[in-house]
């Protein structure tokens, strides 16, 4: 601090323009950082001072320039707080493009609201937030705030460049702690070298990035974790809601979670014991027992998010879930585990990062803030049964694309371990459709089709299957959005399948005037339902692209056409084989039957940027092929 005072003083003496506001003028931003940047982080100082395990102070000072409306949201400051997090101070200021002060921001300008997300019944967390408004672009916002955490189990990560279209002039992170404090530190995509300093009382670590240019926002970007600079810190000894502990790896962290958060919540009541015994007594096979208990759970409970108390880490007691018939993911998994305990079947409480984008727990770095959901693993001799306990509908042992194929953190009585959830391969994630239609001379289509959904596609129709018929029809009209379509029959049923659950949809339809007649020509677009959307054709791409999830769709649609129709024009068959996937479209007319066959399988994986244009060509070729039509000529009698 004292250094900069001196500097100011000298500058003043020399009669040079003073530091401060004028510095924020956008003219001071180097040209290469303005290129493509919708926002520029001018300077950010992120300091965490761990005074004690129950007193951690975060101090942030940042100056951010917003170039245009598309980056306005980055100017929002939202500070979440609860019983364990106190906002000590917030203030700031707004400057125009020339760096002239326009408005000071103080705590009273912040809106204070409940931070409850809409699926949650209750969380005791609140948010103070502020968004600059009504300003001309560009403008600069300065914030200076301090938060105090009464725990050190969760130390926020440092991410100096959180958005692709943001450039960074300078951003630093200093972590201060006692000389004896032991830390685990993980640096990702950090190319510099951190500096360490010590004095009599404390030590500090500093990271710094400078001159990071903005990049384009591109579709199919890989998960940000793979390219963002990030520093994670986990202190070895921690304090959390009046609990203490210590860990250096997943094993020890898992041990603490099990002993301190879960175990005490699993005491069964006599009625639970007799209920479980009644259900499984006649069964010998463990898998059968698990299935019966899982179905009991599905029928008895429902998902309600009630996150109070231990920061959303401790489950509600099993006896409480038994009595109320509801719980959040932790509560329901804990309850299921307790039921299995009664039946003497061991199982693991597993923390997972849920979402369609697959994210692993980090193998080499244990910490509590990597997951957002909990599932249950039941190890058997041959394999492991995975149970999602918050759904009342999904079949036994099915995980779906919310939690599949990723490393999860299992908290077992013998400590934590990382386990991988099952993967649904693109070949096994199928949607297979067969249809028999007839086309009459009015252009109407009548017929029926059945579609089977498997693997990661199993739950494509799960939300509709239990709806009343009129709701189903309404939703199907959006899925099969064909003009004049009417559904005369709709049925869903689970089908026995060897390896993965399988749902079958059986639908009968009428489509009035689907194939219009113009003079003697009849136009039929044979691909009724499965039309691929187009993808942006980017000539230049900067970042690799990432296909998160592959699948296979096959459609075989057979149309019987009127006698007097002769084929006039038929598109050529299409066969594409690429590294991204394969596509086949074939049309065959035999006698009066036109068979349309389409098969699209998409792979998954990461590809270099220069391959993107090939990918776009492939997908857009599929898009074009899906729109092709057949033209018939009506013979005169």
């Amino acid at each position, binding site marked *: 601090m004292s250094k900069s005072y001196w500097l100011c003083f000298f500058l003043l003496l020399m009669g040079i323009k003073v530091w401060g506001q004028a510095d924020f003028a956008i003219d001071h931003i180097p040209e290469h950082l303005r290129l493509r940047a919708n926002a520029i982080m001018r300077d950010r100082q992120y300091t965490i001072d761990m005074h004690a395990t129950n007193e951690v102070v975060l101090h942030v000072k940042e100056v951010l320039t917003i170039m245009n409306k598309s980056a306005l949201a980055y100017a929002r400051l939202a500070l979440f707080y609860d019983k364990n997090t106190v906002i000590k101070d917030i203030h700031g200021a707004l400057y125009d493009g020339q760096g002239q002060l326009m408005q000071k921001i103080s705590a009273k300008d912040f809106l204070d609201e409940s931070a409850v997300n809409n699926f949650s019944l209750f969380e005791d967390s609140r948010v103070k937030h502020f968004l600059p408004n*009504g300003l001309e672009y560009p403008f600069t916002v300065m914030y200076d705030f301090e938060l105090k955490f009464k725990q050190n189990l969760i130390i926020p990560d440092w991410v100096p460049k959180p958005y692709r279209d943001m450039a960074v002039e300078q951003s630093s992170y200093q972590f201060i702690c006692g000389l004896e404090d032991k830390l685990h530190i993980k640096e990702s995509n950090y190319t510099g070298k951190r500096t360490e300093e010590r004095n009599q009382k404390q030590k500090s670590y500093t990271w710094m990035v400078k001159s990071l240019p903005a990049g384009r926002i591109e579709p199919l970007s890989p998960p940000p974790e793979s390219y963002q600079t990030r520093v994670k810190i986990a202190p070895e000894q921690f304090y959390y809601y009046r609990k203490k502990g210590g860990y250096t790896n997943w094993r020890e962290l898992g041990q603490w979670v099990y002993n301190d958060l879960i175990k005490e919540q699993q005491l069964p009541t006599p009625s639970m014991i007799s209920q479980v015994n009644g259900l499984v007594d006649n069964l010998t096979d463990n898998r059968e027992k698990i299935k019966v208990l899982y179905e009991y759970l599905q029928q008895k409970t429902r998902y309600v998010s009630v996150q109070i108390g231990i920061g959303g880490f401790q489950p509600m007691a099993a006896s409480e879930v038994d009595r109320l*018939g509801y719980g959040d993911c932790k509560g329901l998994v804990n309850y299921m585990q307790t039921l299995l305990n009664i039946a003497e079947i061991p199982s693991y409480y597993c923390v997972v990062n849920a979402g369609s984008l697959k994210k692993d727990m980090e193998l080499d770095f244990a910490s509590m803030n990597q997951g957002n959901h909990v599932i249950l693993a039941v190890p058997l001799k041959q394999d492991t049964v995975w149970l999602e306990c918050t759904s009342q509908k999904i079949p036994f042992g099915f995980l779906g694309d919310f939690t599949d194929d990723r490393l999860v953190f299992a908290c077992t009585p013998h400590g934590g371990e990382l386990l991988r959830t099952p993967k649904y391969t693109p070949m096994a994630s199928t949607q297979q459709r067969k249809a028999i239609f007839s086309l009459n001379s009015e252009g109407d289509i009548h017929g029926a089709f059945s579609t089977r959904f498997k693997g990661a596609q199993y739950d494509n129709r799960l939300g509709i299957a239990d709806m009343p018929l009129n709701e189903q029809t309404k939703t199907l009209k959006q899925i099969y959005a064909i003009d004049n379509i009417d559904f005369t029959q709709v049925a869903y049923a689970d089908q026995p399948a060897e390896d993965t659950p399988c749902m079958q949809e059986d639908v009968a339809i009428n489509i*009035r005037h689907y194939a219009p007649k113009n003079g003697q020509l009849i136009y039929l677009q044979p691909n009724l339902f499965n039309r691929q959307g187009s993808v942006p054709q980017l000539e230049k791409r900067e970042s690799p692209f990432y296909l998160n999830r592959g699948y296979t769709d096959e459609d075989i649609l057979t149309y019987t056409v009127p006698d007097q129709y002769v084929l006039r*024009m038929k598109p050529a068959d299409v066969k594409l084989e690429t590294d991204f996937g394969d596509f086949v479209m074939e049309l065959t007319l035999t006698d009066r039957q036109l068979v349309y066959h389409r098969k699209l399988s998409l792979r998954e994986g990461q590809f270099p940027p220069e391959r993107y244009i090939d990918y776009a060509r492939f997908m857009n070729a599929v898009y074009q092929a899906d729109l092709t*039509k057949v033209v018939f000529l009506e013979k005169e009698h």
Partner: protein
Amino acid sequence: MTKIIFPALVALLSFCTVFADDFSFGAISTEEKEMQQCAYDSTANAVVLREYGRARFSFDDQSGAINLIFTHHVRLKIFNKEGVKQANIVIPLYKDGDRIEYVQELKAVTLNPQTNGTKVETWLETKNTYKEEYSKYVTLTKFTMPNIQNGSIIEYSYQIISPRLYNFRNWEFQTDIPKIYSEYEAIIPGTYNYNVVMRGPFKLSDQKSALVREGFRLPGWPIDCSQLTYIMKNVPAFIEEDYMTAASNFKSAIYFELADVLLRNGSKRSFTKEWKNVDRELMLDRSLGGQAKQKDEFEKVMPEITQHVQGDLNKAKAIYSFIKKQIKWNKYYGIFSELGVRKALDQHTGNIADINLALIAALAAGGLDAEVVILSTRENGIVNKLNPVISEFNYLIAKLTVAGESYFLDASDPLLPFGMLPLRCINDQGRVLPIKQSSYWVDLMPKEKHHVQYTLIGELLTDGTLKGKLVTSSYGYAAYLKRKEIVDYPSVEEYFEKKKSETPGMQILHEEISGLDTIERSLQERCEVSINLFDSLQNHQLFFNPFFMNKTNKNPFNLNERTYPVDIGMLQEESLNLDVKLPDGYELVSKPKDMNLALMDKGGQFVNRTRLENGHLFCNQLFRLNKMIYGSEEYLSLKEFFSRIIQLQKTDVVLQEKTI
């Protein structure tokens, strides 16, 4: 929508004091126990079996305040897992400084009927109810019912003690699940006179009124009350549909608004008044009329603003741009100014009323005739036309009259051209408040429509490529919305990049845009395009589809029936003019039908013409929707209208190689 008006005090009160009482808690009938589905809606996942509400006044001796005590008692049944969300109950409570509402006497139970005819009761425990500070003005009391299964019956009741008397307590007969029986009892002291308005399509099944002797007591002053009972039976669920304005316009509900109160000294304090009183009050209000008169604020700058312009209209336009530049909108609505004209000018920010009152004052300073118009935005619903309900208005604009022509002005959006209203304001009627005369209703009909014109002049090559120049001209709301879209991009180049990437099958070679900054005019995008129309010739024939520019792929009206009017929000016009030079040596074999489709009462039009002339193919299409709101009875014709267009657009132009 039907509105029925009742005088709150029914003249002929039957002189009895029978309370049509609340139904008894937990006394479930066998019929309710055994009910498997809602008799008149088999698709319902849950149903309200019975619901009772009562609102009455009470005098609090300790605070000396009059409170409204609202009792709500509900019994509902959950049929299946989809209905479980009905077990999550939220009671919103309002607070404003020390005027706080609170809940008392909450009790709730889940009853699970057993096969042996008994039932298992699980009571809600107080510790499982949560209070959430939702915002500055709202607290939520939340709870979820325990032990919910298919067939569970939930019963709960509570009281809200509220200091808010102005709207009494509104009652919604309709919600997202059907209600078999809903009864509301309003017990209103004879000294209070409320206007009562029914909304929604359904009629009351029963309505009673009775006199309650001394039903309300002020110290030393017993007051007789009228007890009004409203009953609706077999109310269907309210289902939201697409293209619908505010749900409150259509839901069956009963609304109250205080008209006047008879004071002890015999005088009457009036709340809901005649428009003539409201006019006066608003124009005298410092945050409304008072601000509209602040023309002194502009006296100094006026010569500068108007120095280079001739004529009143141009003067008005200059003033309009001045205000748009000077005051930025802070995204708050309102008919009352928050900061006042001077502060808004100083701080360069303000709410809707600050901005448009400043505009009105500035226009007045320029010697122009500008008036205040108050209105309710689309999402806020339609206002009551029978008597002035100020709380229903949430927006204020200016009405300018120049040479007998009137213009609506809103200076809150820099991209809005002079005389155009943002879409949120296009909602039925607004009330004009002239300074001296009495107020009147005015239609908020837009002068402009959403109008786009495509012109493509090009040449078709035998390899299936169409090369040409495409001009897209946007007018009215189309130009406005496109400008709004483009400013969201960091630069126009990035807008082009994005556009290029989104047109598979069409290559955009060179693109320019004009009129981006002249918001009063149309917006023109010109580009050179190369479109791949077909792959190869088959049988010496060439098929191509001329509807590649603005094809309608999906019918927006796909359902078989419609309950509410369809509100498309804007008048629309789209036209396409195509001039394609064909390769030599081809003749026309077939082309999409020429057609002229019209909706009833000139509600819409679609025209298609194709002709071959001197080796050029000319296609002209015109599409118009001439109404903003189509009645539910017009739904099927709209659907058919779109369907015909889709069918036509599937057909091709077929050309045949000439045999020489």
